[in-house]
């Protein structure tokens, strides 16, 4: 019998299937204290079924798995609204300094002055950038920051005995977390339409804003990558009705140094440090979603907030805080990375980030508009939303284009979002990419459009050369297999 040489075959066996009884990857020291009495055996368990492999096998297994991934370090990743920019390596190194990684969250304030000083400084910088000086770094992700923002809005109205305010107005273009967070905050979600230019329909908003409006949730720039031309009027309508304006800051990469949300009349916003501020996406987190508010609302911020007093830096609870939304102080080492990023860029650097992000997105839009419809026929901000409507008519959907891009080593753009755009493909290059990379992407997108006529099966069966081809997601949902078992492997 002979073995077929195939270096491309990847061994996808799980660790438990590689396990050999008696192998180990690690040794712990022996106990150096006198032997203690064990608890009654009724408290104890049998051995945990965990893998028994050597240390090299651990390293090799996870190293090989890592090579199955696309990542910013290895691929262009134009995912709209995700801001897949370069994650500077110095940030990871500095966040892992022992004096930052090995401190316990409950250490007395006087033993962690450096850490609290970092948080305070970051709060101030984020407040300066957004024009909303009240900042809490507690939320562990954008969705938590959003939720904290809504809790603040509710607390504000309750403090004024205005209990009729139970409605959140949300644009139909909003990201799914917006209505989900609103529902969690016990608010009724009312949808405001977008007009055919992708802007909030101002007249519709005027009809909807009333004495029941707690908050209006808006994404700036919008999920179509567009800046609301009527933003001042929109915010005035909401304020006149007695409601607050909450801005989803996921797209802040378009605004750094160009405009402050606070100046536009926004009352509350959140930011995603893992988007705008370069902290790593990590395959799906961890993130950090600080919430920023006006001075008037600062007393409602979730705890803790870093403050400077005469006695030094402290982690404090604002006087009417909505409370704790998670266990400790938020994602500290993520905050440390964002802090390093802001310090490395400085004022001019941050302005340059947004300027270049906007120019790059518009460049792609200009070079593809003859082949792909635009969701809105105007200059975009840091991302452009294409619609594969014309391609769909010729038999290829946005999904197929996304899969074919993978064959060229380019991660797909965000698909089918926002929901108000048909066959949406949201492209956000970020300021990290060179013009050569943008030109390559443009050339590939144009070629794929040609392939629709010349060789559509290439697209329909894409991707071809990755570790897997298209996966059967229906069976995965109908008959879920969610863990290794001895029978199934």
């Amino acid at each position, binding site marked *: 019998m002979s073995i077929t040489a195939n270096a491309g075959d990847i061994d*996808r066996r*799980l*660790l438990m299937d590689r396990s050999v009884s008696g192998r*180990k*990857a*690690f040794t712990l020291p022996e106990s150096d*204290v006198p032997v*203690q009495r064990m608890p009654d055996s009724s*408290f104890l368990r049998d051995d*945990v079924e*965990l893998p028994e492999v050597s*240390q090299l096998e651990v390293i090799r297994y*996870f190293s090989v*798995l*890592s090579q*199955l*991934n*696309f990542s910013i370090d290895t691929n262009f990743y134009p995912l709209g609204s*995700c801001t897949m920019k370069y994650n500077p390596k110095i940030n990871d190194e500095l966040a892992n*300094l*022992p004096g*930052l990684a*090995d401190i316990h969250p409950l*250490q*007395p304030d006087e033993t962690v*002055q*450096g850490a609290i*000083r970092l948080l305070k400084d970051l709060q101030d910088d984020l407040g300066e950038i957004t024009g909303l000086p009240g900042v809490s770094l507690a939320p*562990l992700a954008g969705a938590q920051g959003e*939720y904290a923002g809504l809790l603040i809005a509710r607390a504000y109205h309750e403090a004024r005995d205005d209990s009729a305010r139970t409605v959140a107005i949300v644009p139909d273009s909003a990201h*799914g977390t917006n209505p989900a967070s609103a*529902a*969690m905050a016990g608010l009724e979600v009312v949808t405001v339409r977008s007009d055919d230019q992708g802007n909030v329909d101002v007249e519709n908003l005027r009809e909807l804003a009333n004495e029941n409006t707690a908050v209006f949730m808006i994404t700036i720039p919008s999920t179509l990558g567009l800046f*609301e031309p009527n933003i001042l009027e929109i915010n005035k309508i909401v304020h006149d009705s007695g409601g607050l304006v909450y801005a989803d800051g996921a797209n802040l990469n378009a605004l750094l*140094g*160009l405009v402050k949300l606070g*100046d536009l009349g926004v009352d509350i916003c959140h930011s995603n440090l893992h988007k705008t501020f370069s902290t790593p996406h*990590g*395959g*799906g*987190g961890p993130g950090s979603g600080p919430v920023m508010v006006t001075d008037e609302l600062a007393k409602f911020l979730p705890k803790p907030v870093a403050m400077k007093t005469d006695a030094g830096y402290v982690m404090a609870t604002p006087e009417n805080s909505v409370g704790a939304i998670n*266990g*400790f*102080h938020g994602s*500290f080492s993520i905050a440390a990375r964002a802090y390093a990023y802001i*310090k490395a860029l*400085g*004022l001019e650097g*941050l302005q*340059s980030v947004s*300027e270049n992000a906007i*120019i790059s997105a518009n*460049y792609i839009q*200009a070079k593809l508009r003859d082949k792909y419809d635009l969701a809105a026929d105007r200059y975009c901000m840091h991302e452009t939303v294409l619609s594969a409507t014309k391609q769909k008519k010729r038999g290829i959907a946005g999904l197929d284009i996304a899969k074919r891009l*993978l064959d060229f080593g380019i991660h797909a753009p965000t698909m089918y979002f926002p929901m108000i755009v048909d066959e949406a493909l949201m492209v956000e290059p970020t300021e*990290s990419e060179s013009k050569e990379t943008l030109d390559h992407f443009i050339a590939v997108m144009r070629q794929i459009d040609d392939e629709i006529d010349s060789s559509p099966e290439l697209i329909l069966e894409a991707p071809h050369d990755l*570790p897997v081809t298209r*996966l059967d997601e229906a069976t995965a*949902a109908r008959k*879920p297999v969610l863990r290794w078992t001895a029978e199934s492997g």
Partner: protein
Amino acid sequence: MASLVPSGNTSTNHPYIPSTDLERQEMLGVIGVDSLDGLLGDIPVEHRHPDLNLDVGLAEQELSTLFGSIAAENASSSSGHISFLGAGSYSHYIPSTVRSIMQRGEFVTAYTPYQPEAAQGTLQVGFEFQTVICQLTGMEVANAGMYDGPTAFAEACLMAARVTKRTKVGVLSSADSRLPDTLLAYSKYQGIEIVGITPDATEIPDDLACIGIQSPNFFGEIEDVERLTKLAHDNGALSVVHVNPTALGMFKAPGELDVDIVTAEGQPLGVPMAFGGPYVGLFACKKAHIRQMPGRIIGRTTDTKGRTGYALTLQTREQHIRRERATSNICTSTQLIGLMVTVYTATLGKQGIKDLANLCYQKAHYAASEIDKLNGFSVETMSAGGTFFHEFVVKCPGSPAKINAALLSNKIIGGLDISDRFENGMLVCVTETSSKADIDKFVKALSEIGASA
């Protein structure tokens, strides 16, 4: 007030931004505008280019110096301090394998695996993570991780409310207050009432959705999970148990006790304490409840050629599809921290996870018995006959805050002052990172401080 900064002419060529002036000019030409301002038409003129009070950018070397000085202002093992703090975040040795794999950019800088063909690494790791959580807890299914322990616990209680269609949640009074506090933040507008249950309760209200139990509890003691689970089930309620994963190396798995949902803080499994985060919440439950489980779930399937692959599944529970009807608003999770946990448990392996639990147990019990001998100090479980893992309550002869201040001058960070819940109480934690010499130093310092108190 807007300042007259000419835009589009920033000749800052920052290492993170490749486009040169020439390239920008070229691109603007293709776009069809003279300068960046031509693209900013929708931004109100009076608010463009605001004054920003931010520092000038630092070179990498300067950044490193800055962080060095920040780190130097913090007390930790690297400044020669020893610590006996626990209470939800724990000091454990992190193996070199974890740090090494954690630095691989393909894991660190990957996105959420919505395009599974381009993310089989992240997905297979997540599947391994789900497997490990099931193996440790003895439960049937687990998700791919939540933000942290307390939010996982909160989500578990809300899930119990959905499953039982009841609105009262019971939480054992011996739990860390962080658990009900976080639950309150998540539930205050969902018509949920939180009710305290004493650990020795023999009756509970018949409209409870669940009994939420922390075991080991806040004071370090093992609760009677089996009895409380039966009590819950007899009343049509679910049993939600929040565990310490290190303890699961020796103590009975909740899955063996018919528990419905298990949560935990995953930080002890290879994640630095890092002043509170990022951590990872562990969440596992019975298979019957899978459609109500929040968070991301990774499933195995096959591709068009019949090869094994992994993908996010049961996504219709989540916010990007259900929006306001989602089981939770969670989007970004903590995948990278889940990777650390997976590498850690693979490294420790079957024997290591057992040895580690034993080491922590031995050292903590040694410390407790030595402290209990001191004049003026007593260890609460020793007198009450309870069973503890690696944390215990010390009743001090005076204010724990004063004792801790004195300890600090000896470069010892004492246990948590819990006198708000237990008079003159200090919650002491000992893990494998404390040597016998460290423990003896701590005991000696306590004895000297106690004598002069």
